[in-house]
C-alpha cells in the first residue's frame, strides 16, 4: 500500500498492451505514485491492485520502490530534511 510505482515506458509506446494496463501507465507516469493512491484511482481494493501491478512489473512496464528500511528511515539527516521540507510546504 505504501510502495510507490512509476511507469518505465510511456503509455503511448505500449499500445499493444491491455487498456487497463495503459491506464495504469498513464496514472504512474511522473515521479511515482503510491500503490494505495493508484488503487483508489482505479477503484480497486489494495490486493487486486497489487496483483495487477505485479503483472506490469514482470513485464518491465513499471518500476517499483519499496518502503524505506528502518536504518534509512531513522537516519537523522534524512529526518531533518523531511522536517525542513515540511516547514516550507
Amino acid at each position: 500500500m505504501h510502495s510507490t510505482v512509476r511507469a518505465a515506458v510511456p503509455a503511448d509506446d505500449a499500445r499493444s498492451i491491455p487498456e487497463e494496463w495503459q491506464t495504469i501507465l498513464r496514472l504512474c507516469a511522473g515521479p511515482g505514485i503510491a500503490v494505495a493512491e493508484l488503487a483508489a484511482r482505479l477503484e480497486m481494493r489494495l490486493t487486486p491492485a497489487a496483483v495487477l501491478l505485479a503483472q506490469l512489473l514482470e513485464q518491465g512496464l513499471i518500476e517499483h520502490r519499496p518502503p524505506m528500511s528502518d536504518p534509512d528511515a531513522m537516519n537523522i539527516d534524512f529526518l531533518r530534511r523531511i522536517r525542513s521540507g515540511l516547514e516550507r510546504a
Partner: protein
Amino acid sequence: MNEPDTRAPDAVRDTYLPPVKILVAGGFGVGKTTAVGTVSEITPLRTEERLSAAGVGVDDLSGIEQKSATTVAMDFGRITLDVAVLMLFGTPGQERFWFMWDDLLRGALGAVVLVDTRRLDRSFAAVDFFESRDLPFVVAANCFHGEQDYDPEEIRDALTLREPSTPIVLFDARRRDSVRGVLLALMDHLIASAEPAHAQRT
C-alpha cells in the same frame, strides 16, 4: 545537491522520491478524515482493503473465513517535499482487525493519534496498538470549535501513556498550518529519538 521540480510531468529518474509513510489514527469521529484532507495536496482518496481472519484462532472450516472477513477503508493523502513524498494514511476505526494487517505498520515512520477529549476512550486502542509495536507517535487533541478544556498533561494522564516523551499537541483539524504543526511535532519527536546515537543536542 540540485533539487529538480518533482511535480514536473516529465520528471527525470532521480526525482523518484522515497515514499515516507505516516499513519493518522484515532477513534471514530475524532477528525482523521478532516485532518488528512486539510493537509494533503490532493483531494483525499479512499483506499479499501479486504482483511480475512481465516486461520487466526479459528478452526479451518469452510465458510468461517467468509464470516470473519471485513473490508476496511483508509483515507489517503500526500504531501510532496523536495526529499520525499509523505504519504498519509488515515487508518480505519476497526482497530480489532489491525493485528492481522501486516502491511499497516510496515515502512511506517511514525503515527499521529488524534483524540477528542470528550471521547478519549475512542483513541485508547490506537495508543495501545502503537505502544505495543514500538512505533513512535504523537498525540494530537482536536480543538473542536477552537476550544479545549484540558491541557496536555491532563490528557497524558487520562491516556496513561507509557512513554513520558510522547508529545501531546493541541490542534485544529480544519486548519492546514495546525495539521502541519502536528506533523512537525512528529518529526521533532522522531529526530529527538534518533539523536542520542548522534550525541547531539538541539
